[in-house]
């Protein structure tokens, strides 16, 4: 007896992309995610919607995929993307030979480039080093990973796709050499059960080998840790890349009011190995200094790390272990029927955020073929989310200060009407609970009561609460009564608060100096001193 035709394991960009695609084709599917959606790498990345420029020389296929997907996503998900444009900048340390090769490769991959004069460049990006040699414009953009993941999930739900968060796939279930389902544990209440299906899609990212390994299938996924720094300001208006073979710390990506610099690359043993280290921070700053002189003067609000799941064919390994960047970042679709003689299991490994939709399309094509479904893929044509109606905009503009309106509507989409109604009825709920990121009390209340919110950290990801300069010093306290209202589903307030503060702390520890240290002293004063919370 089948519960669903397909079970997808993994609620990152790839998994939700597949859920949407299958659901649009009328294939019944359930997605399982062990944390909140985007709990893995899809919320711990640079947020760059690649133009392909970065891969043009080394990996033309990736480059071509990137530019195609870049244009598609700008069309179907404009509210999740900020079309900042991007620059590739050659400094005196970067080889002119490489520049020529790059120009040729971009043409080959159909990536449009335009050379920008140094005077124009210095005028448009006043903080950039004045001694750069050449500057080229490309159609890079920035993407809000969390938002696009949720947009996919919502769109899938619209087509009857289902997803369960905090549900872990413990192991695959097989019958006579065929995968027939997944043994699942609900991490919130410990309940265990089995879901039966025709096909399991393993989109577990850096965890993919663990899932395949549960029935002894070897799947080689390298965990390549990358660390990023978030600065307190928008240092550049556009994405700024170094024009050289990819290396550490050579991309700046502006998001709203912050800038993210990254990334390092280091192989680690497990997907959970994602503590940013002080040495990584130092090396990022040293390299960042070359494009942004005086970088140390800018306040860093936190460091964070994500794990790139890199696929490695078993036979061509020698030597790659030292340098993650030489392992291809194009993706691998593995049909385990062909590779291991096990029916009913497909794994999708590697790739980039930028190409998640394409990866989902390829997987869904293969799944559809096996199920005999002939509906073609529509994900490249249909908008990810409906337009926000004019009257909602007007109402929001009437009820809230100017600055937070746009961001709130983008975050909330169709839920905006409920939140606005609440503010209309109870004006004080329009107050900004999080003053750094401008999130209203009504919005946090809505997020806290959503059925798929289970921890303060989930509220943070949905609303950006605690992500700004105060890193939760004030808003953590202010969210407590909203958790309390729904106390049946949260841990005790002490525990939620301690976990939340510890998570934030993990990103602050490696950048603990200047204003950030002062803020830390204030946060400890508030939670240890005034509120008298103690360590566990």
């Amino acid at each position, binding site marked *: 007896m089948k519960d669903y035709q397909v079970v997808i394991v993994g609620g990152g960009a790839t998994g939700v992309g597949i859920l949407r695609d299958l659901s649009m084709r009328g294939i019944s599917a359930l997605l399982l995610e062990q944390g909140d959606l985007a709990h893995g790498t899809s919320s711990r990345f640079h947020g760059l919607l690649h133009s392909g420029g970065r891969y043009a020389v080394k990996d033309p296929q990736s480059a071509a995929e990137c530019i195609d997907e870049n244009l598609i996503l700008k069309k179907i998900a404009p509210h999740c993307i900020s079309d900042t444009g991007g620059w590739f900048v050659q400094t005196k340390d970067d080889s002119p030979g490489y520049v020529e090769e790059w120009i040729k490769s971009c043409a080959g991959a159909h990536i449009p480039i335009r050379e920008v004069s140094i005077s124009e460049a210095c005028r448009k990006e006043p903080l950039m080093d004045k001694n750069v040699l050449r500057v080229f414009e490309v159609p890079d953009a920035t993407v809000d990973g969390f938002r696009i993941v949720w947009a996919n999930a919502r769109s899938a739900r619209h087509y009857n796709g289902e997803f369960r968060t905090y549900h872990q796939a413990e192991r695959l279930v097989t019958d006579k050499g065929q995968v027939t389902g997944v043994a699942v544990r609900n991490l919130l209440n410990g309940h265990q059960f089995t879901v039966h299906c025709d096909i399991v899609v393993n989109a577990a990212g850096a965890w993919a080998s663990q899932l395949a390994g549960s029935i002894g299938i070897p799947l080689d996924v390298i965990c390549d840790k990358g660390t990023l720094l978030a600065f307190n300001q928008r240092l550049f208006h556009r994405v700024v890349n170094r024009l050289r073979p990819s290396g550490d710390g050579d991309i700046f990506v502006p998001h709203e009011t912050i800038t993210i610099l990254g990334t390092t690359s280091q192989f680690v043993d497990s997907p959970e190995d994602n503590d940013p280290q002080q040495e990584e921070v130092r090396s990022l700053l040293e390299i960042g200094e070359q494009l942004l002189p005086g970088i140390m003067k800018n306040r860093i609000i936190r460091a964070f790390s994500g794990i790139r799941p890199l696929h490695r064919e078993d036979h061509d390994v020698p030597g790659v272990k030292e340098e993650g960047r030489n392992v291809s970042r194009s993706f691998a679709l593995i049909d385990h029927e062909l590779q291991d003689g096990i029916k009913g299991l497909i794994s999708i490994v590697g790739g980039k955020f930028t190409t998640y939709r394409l990866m989902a399309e390829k997987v869904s094509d293969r799944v559809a073929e096996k199920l005999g479904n002939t509906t073609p893929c529509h994900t490249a044509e249909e908008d990810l989310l409906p337009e926000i109606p004019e009257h909602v905009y007007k109402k929001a503009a009437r009820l809230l200060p100017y600055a937070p309106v746009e961001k709130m509507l983008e975050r909330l989409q169709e839920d905006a009407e409920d939140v606005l109604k609440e503010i209309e009825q109870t004006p004080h709920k329009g*107050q900004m609970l999080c003053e750094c990121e401008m999130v209203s009390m009504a919005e946090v209340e809505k997020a806290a009561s959503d059925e798929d919110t289970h921890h303060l950290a989930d509220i943070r990801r949905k609303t950006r609460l605690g992500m700004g300069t105060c890193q939760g010093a004030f808003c953590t306290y202010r969210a*407590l009564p909203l958790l309390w209202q729904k106390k049946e589903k949260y841990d005790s307030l002490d525990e939620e608060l301690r976990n939340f503060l510890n998570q*934030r702390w993990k990103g602050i520890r490696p950048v603990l100096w200047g204003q950030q240290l002062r803020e830390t002293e204030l946060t400890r004063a508030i939670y240890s001193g005034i509120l*008298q919370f103690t360590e566990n």
Partner: protein
Amino acid sequence: MWDGIIIGGGLAGLTAGIRAAERGKQILIISEGAGSLTYSSGALDFGDVGQLLSHEDHPYALLGETVVHAGMEWFQNLFPDYRGSWSEFQEILTPLGAPRKAGIVPRSHNTEPLKNAKVIILMAPYGLKDFFPEIIKTNLLKAYPQCEVEIFPFRTGTFESWHTIGKPVTGMDYTKYWQSQPGVSELKRLLDSLPQTSGETVILFPGLAAAFCEPLKEVLAGTPFPVIEMTSFPPSACGHNLYSALKQKFKSLGGELLTGTGVQSIESHNKVCSRAIVRSKGRPTAFSADSFILATGGIFGGGIEATADTAQETVLGLPLYVPAQWTNSEFLGEQPYARIGIEADRELRPVGPGGKEVLFKNLRVIGRMLAHWDPWTETCGGGVSLATGWFAGNQL
């Protein structure tokens, strides 16, 4: 020429200033900002003094028990609105209504009356920011299981127009109103209107801050039931009122307070400080004195600045104690960075590495600038600032 110049006018600096001025000294305090009292709870924590005295380098250990005790006594004599006891902790409520211990507290914060209460009426001013009556009620029921807790919501006309547009009313706003003449009358009416229950009812009133305000104290003294207060989330009216009271006391004793501008450096010769250099209106100005006190508040106050590689004392570049590892993973646990500060001898004079050589003969270091203590894990923020400030003012 001053007898003493104090750099930094927070709790430690003002305490030193008042003590020295009481002794007839001519004192100038130069302070860049207002210090951390306005953020603080307004209660002064001393921590477990007996235990802390046994930590070799702790500021308490430098001073010795007699001095710490004397500082505590002195403060209570100075401000009878505050109360503490050398032999036992005072109990007060956190902003979430959980009982906690403290050293010296505003009298009206002491939870003594709750111990025998049967009914707690929790006053709930409409729209009061950062005040969560339902959570407080739960915590009260847990701490005082013999009690019933009733939430008593009320609104005052003054803030109606704020409520309509959803503007937050902070504890500071409410306090300001209660301290005004119409506020005092309204408070009286409000308390009179409460149900006249038996003697076992206690009123818990947030956002009041009665200490140092005579008319408010009078109203509260006239009620048939005890009215007690609770600490609040920053900024706190209670901490702010203590700051104002300290300033006022200092000035009334003839002290001079220069705020809004910082000391950039101190000139010295042969280990003797002579002049503090201040930049005002773009021009450096020098102030001379016989003795100096450094009370610039550590990392939060601005007296210590940290870069990615090291930490620096900002006025004289004094050497600092800096631990090798700064942090641990449990945020609310021990964090070694908190112990960064200046190492001093028993006279609180800064000493060089190794602890032998006194670096300046006429300079004392007090409050959060000192090394080897952590106000948060040791709950002694107010106590150390008060005791070291009192001592420095006493010796000057």
